[in-house]
């Protein structure tokens, strides 16, 4: 039987704008994925430990506060420390384009800005999974 794609949707940092995270969560569910929604104010440590226990394929994070350069790379770093190398990590939110090369160099696979259609995110996940589904 084919495995389900499991995605952790989290909001690191302190901002409370979760409209995007919730819309994405719903869209991923409607695309047949299992979404673990951890809500607001998540530390990188909480995100990584939840990702491991939930054995997710993907960590999707949203930040609108401007703390992305600090928090996204920290999540990738912690995953490495734990020896996890098969989780796809990407982010979204209000993130200036000039920050994207830095984030990618730190291991964030992609950064989606405002106005990204959910279908694009879904395709991205399906084509970039690091683990096979069967």
């Amino acid at each position: 039987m084919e495995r389900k794609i499991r995605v952790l949707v989290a909001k690191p940092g302190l901002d409370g704008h979760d409209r995007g995270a919730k819309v994405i969560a719903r869209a991923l569910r409607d695309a047949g994925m299992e979404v673990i929604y951890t809500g607001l104010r998540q530390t990188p440590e909480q995100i990584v430990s939840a990702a491991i226990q939930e054995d997710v394929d993907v960590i999707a994070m949203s930040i609108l506060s401007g703390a992305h350069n600090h928090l996204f790379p920290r999540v990738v770093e912690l995953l490495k420390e734990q020896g996890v190398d098969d989780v796809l990590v990407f982010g979204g939110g209000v993130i200036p384009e000039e920050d994207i090369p830095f984030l990618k160099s730190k291991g964030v696979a992609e950064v989606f800005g405002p106005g990204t259609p959910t279908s694009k995110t879904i395709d991205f996940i399906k084509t970039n999974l690091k683990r096979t589904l069967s």
Partner: protein
Amino acid sequence: MTELVRRCIAGDTRAAARLITLLESQDRAAYMALYRLKDHVGHAHVIGITGPPGAGKSTLADKLITQFRARGLKVGVLAVDPSSPFSGGAILGDRLRMQSHATDLGVFIRSLATRGSLGGISKATHGAIRVLDAAGYDIILVETVGVGQSEIDVVRVADTVVLVSVPGLGDDIQVIKAGIMEIGDIFVVNKADRDGADRVVRELRAMLETQAQLTRGQSPAAGPDTLAARDPDFMHHAGIEPGTQPESAFSEQVSETPPVLKTIAENGTGVAELTNTILKHLDRLASTGELEHARLESIKYQLGQFVFEEIDHLLSATDLTNVRDELARKVFSRKTDVYSAGMALFERVFQQGADHGHSQA
């Protein structure tokens, strides 16, 4: 796989998590792996938390984790949420309430989607419990989806079932009356600071008392107010034939009226007492031999389930699907009838199963 099992037994979080994933995907090799866990299971106390949607099950689970941790126990949590019948996807949000424990190494939280199961837990829940048991978790909390009246499979996996109710859900008592009353070992009225909490407690106590009296007076299978009488279908599902089980696990559990407790999970009120009551319940089960009995019943049920699933699995193989379709056409054109065709199909399934078992061995 052997490596995964070894690491799981050694308490490795990632290995346990990965094994659960494989079980969820009905991976054959993972089923085999469960065999290797057998010497390491049977130690955990499995607690089911069930009740209607909005009763505060996740918040209660969160506070129970704190209590068990304070008593030095390691806690595994399996939180079940429904899959979407349309897309097969799911949003699993129970974990959100327990995220403050995410970084505690003595706590493992896993969200499970029902994936089509209707009984309030997912098919993989049995296996996931064994994995967490083998990985060294002392307590395993199983939080079911919000139950209506038929989602009672949790009784088949849990040693202690905590049934959570809450005032102000309208006909909450009615919901309980309608079918799930019997599965509760401990009753909790959560959000007890709300209006109507005492009324819910009174009504629950009255119902439990009536039930206990009835059960004491009559044999459980024939009694007017038992699960067997009301829902023979459930008993059938549970692998219990009415009348053939003179000592049903249920009859002994209700021989003492289950306690009814009040909690306000939001601020932790009453949760320490609930924790003690849960631990006491297990002690009593262990000392009276009920635990052994109940677990044996549960295994019987699982065996039955396993056979159903295997048949299902076999039936979905192409050659048998073809046989079925052909037989169906024959029934349709009145060349045979549904019972004869069914027996013929069953024999083919049986044959296939024997071959299948042979090739496995």
